[in-house]
């Protein structure tokens, strides 16, 4: 049936997200928090994350345009970003943030630029994947996600 097919698809997608390291255990925690009271909890949180992180990315982009670079400020931004990404379990994004912070510590402007590109890249990639995932989830019926998460 379409339902089960979608479910299977969803399960597959979900698994690959974990296997490929896009998501980590925190995501599972979020899924476990989802319940009848908040049936779309995970999606809501992810949406919130992307909204907030977009703002952060903008700030960092602006800061990167300044010359000379204010590494402390950049480091702070990344700290926030890192904290945020850890909230949804965005493992790859988080790793890139760590890289960025290292460059900041080393005062490596070039490195900062490069690693931030990576951050943005991972950030966007995950977003796409999650959007597809949630779409599937919706199609498969909220009951699916809810039951699975329990």
């Amino acid at each position, binding site marked *: 049936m379409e339902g089960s097919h979608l479910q299977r698809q969803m399960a597959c997608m979900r698994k690959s997200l974990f296997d490929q390291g896009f998501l980590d255990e925190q995501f599972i925690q*979020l899924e476990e928090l989802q319940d009848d009271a908040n049936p779309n909890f995970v999606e809501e949180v992810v949406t*919130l994350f992307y909204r907030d992180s977009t703002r952060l990315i903008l700030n960092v982009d602006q800061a990167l345009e300044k010359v000379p670079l204010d590494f402390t400020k950049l480091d702070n931004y990344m700290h926030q970003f890192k904290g*945020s990404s850890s909230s949804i379990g965005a493992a790859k994004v988080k790793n890139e943030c760590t890289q960025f912070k290292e460059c900041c510590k080393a005062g490596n402007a070039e490195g900062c630029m490069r690693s931030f590109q990576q951050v943005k890249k991972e950030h966007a990639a995950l977003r796409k994947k999650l959007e597809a995932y949630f779409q599937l989830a919706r199609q498969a019926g909220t009951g699916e996600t809810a039951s699975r998460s329990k």
Partner: protein
Amino acid sequence: MENGFSSPRTDAFPAGLRVLVVDDDPTWLKILEKMLKKCSYEVTTCCLARDALDMLRGKKDGFDIVISDVNMPDMDGFKLLEQVGLEMDLPVIMMSVDGETSRVMKGVQHGACDYLLKPVRMKELRNIWQHVFRKKIHEVKDIESHEGGPDEFDDGHLLSAGDTNLAKKRKDLENREHDDQEFSDPSAAKKVRVVWSVDLHQKFVNAVNQIGLDSEYQPGFLFNTLICIFIHKNISYFILCPSGDIWLSYLLFTTFSCHLNNACIEPLCVILLAEVGPKKILDLMNVPWLTRENVASHLQKYRLYLSRLQKQNEPKTSFGGIKLPDFSYKDPPGSFGLQSSTTMHQNNAANTNFGYSGNKILVQDVGSQIHGGDLEGIVSFLPAAEPKKALIGDVPDPQKTSSSSLMGTTHSLESLRPDVNYASFEFTIPRQHSWSGETPVKEQLKQEHEPYLLLGDGYTNPPLPIPHHIQVHRLRSVPSIYPRTSITERDKLGPIETRPLCTEYKSNHVTSISPVGRTVDLFSVQADSHIINPQAFEAISTITSSTKSRNFDQNCVNNLESVQQNIIPGSGSALLSSHGDVQLFSLQGCGYTENIGLQNIEFSDYNDSELVTELPSHLYDGLRFNCDYLDLMEYPTVDQGLFIA
């Protein structure tokens, strides 16, 4: 509504715990809210620290616990932590994605009762109620119960969730407390929870300042612990009175050592902490409804706050709050001693040994005063905040009978308050060790831990159960003694860290001990031949004081500088000659980077010279105790002797 444990929902404790979450990250805020709701807690979220404070202030007793992120744009999480601790006295949990040791340490120093790493798990949040519970227990001990009637701490209420074990434990604690309540206010029954408003706190500060001014010694020293370390017949004795700063102890020690000397006792190190006197503060404050216990517990927090300020070099005495951490429970006993042990080593390398960060206990080199050159060091305690406090004692070279400057501080001893509770513990420290630069102490200390420290709660009751508060480690015989020589050999002396005592009140004191390394010097100054027994230090260092030790937070040694000067020149007696400034020196090898400051010790009421005289005998009697004496049976004895009451 009431205080958390008195409302109907307490029946289901910990369900219904009122949590305030502060985090600038909206994603986390949402997640945490959901998680906490799943734990059946009542959650309020807030993304600005300022808003959080307003909320807390607006609804006093409206929350049971606060969870806050460390990095927030509008206010540093640590500041918020302090404020909450001081103003509302709520347990605060810090969170951060950054789990670096230094950060965590900082959190604990500022009074956090826990530090969670993001991503935070549900299971971690499920247990946060323990901090609230713990605090309640403490409050009971401080006899500061919430409103709500006698049932407040009724096991039934608190633990009706069905945890009979907890109930039993609670009962035991209560019973124990009540048994020893000779020093506590009998009407421990419910008292209104004191909310320290700005006005009230101001009165408090004024009173404290007043006492400080009146006292012989530099004000700003709030101490309430007496520690005496001495060796007699190859047994080292330590009398530790928790919740105090070492500063005063130093003075006391001086006096004490004199007497000891006369009595043929060769003290190793005396750390005296006298209670600054909640009673006196209370009297000065002249607030009718306030109780001594209220003042006492507030005093503890204040000390912590002061030490923190001092550490940050902020001279102002603002009203800040420091949340008192639950050190007592969380501290691994070993840490205290171990740390010192590292320093004991000849080099100053480890200046963090006492507790890393700040809460360091200064060891005072009472050597100078040590008659007979025995007692040379004053152990500094790490404040309770860092549960690991290390006491470090220096064993002065018996041969050096230089009259250390400690003598100068004799009268400080007198000011010891009777309320001071202390715990004494026994260390075996071989005397006459030559400082050959061995650092065996270190290891030994680590290995031998026999915690038997009776801590007395200076404020309220007799010593608190030791396990909670102080861990005393028996020193292994470590034959390290400071060479009598000059200060230059300080490095050997050891790891005692010197912390400058901070004087909140008097800024004329040197706040930081410049030559860290010199701490050793300080000691040595004491007596040219101060022989410090690293072991002693170690032993002492292992004492982790309980909440009281909090006071040992890094305070600057006011007179450290002056002392240093005195000492450095190598004049043994210089040390304390100057005054009552108690100088704690940490024998940390040279570089004590941290100014371990003992909290300001106010020697206000301690002018009981008898204390010293009686000490020796009492010391023997009272001090000698082992784990079995947990109940501070000796308390009364020692009390007479040591605490100037």
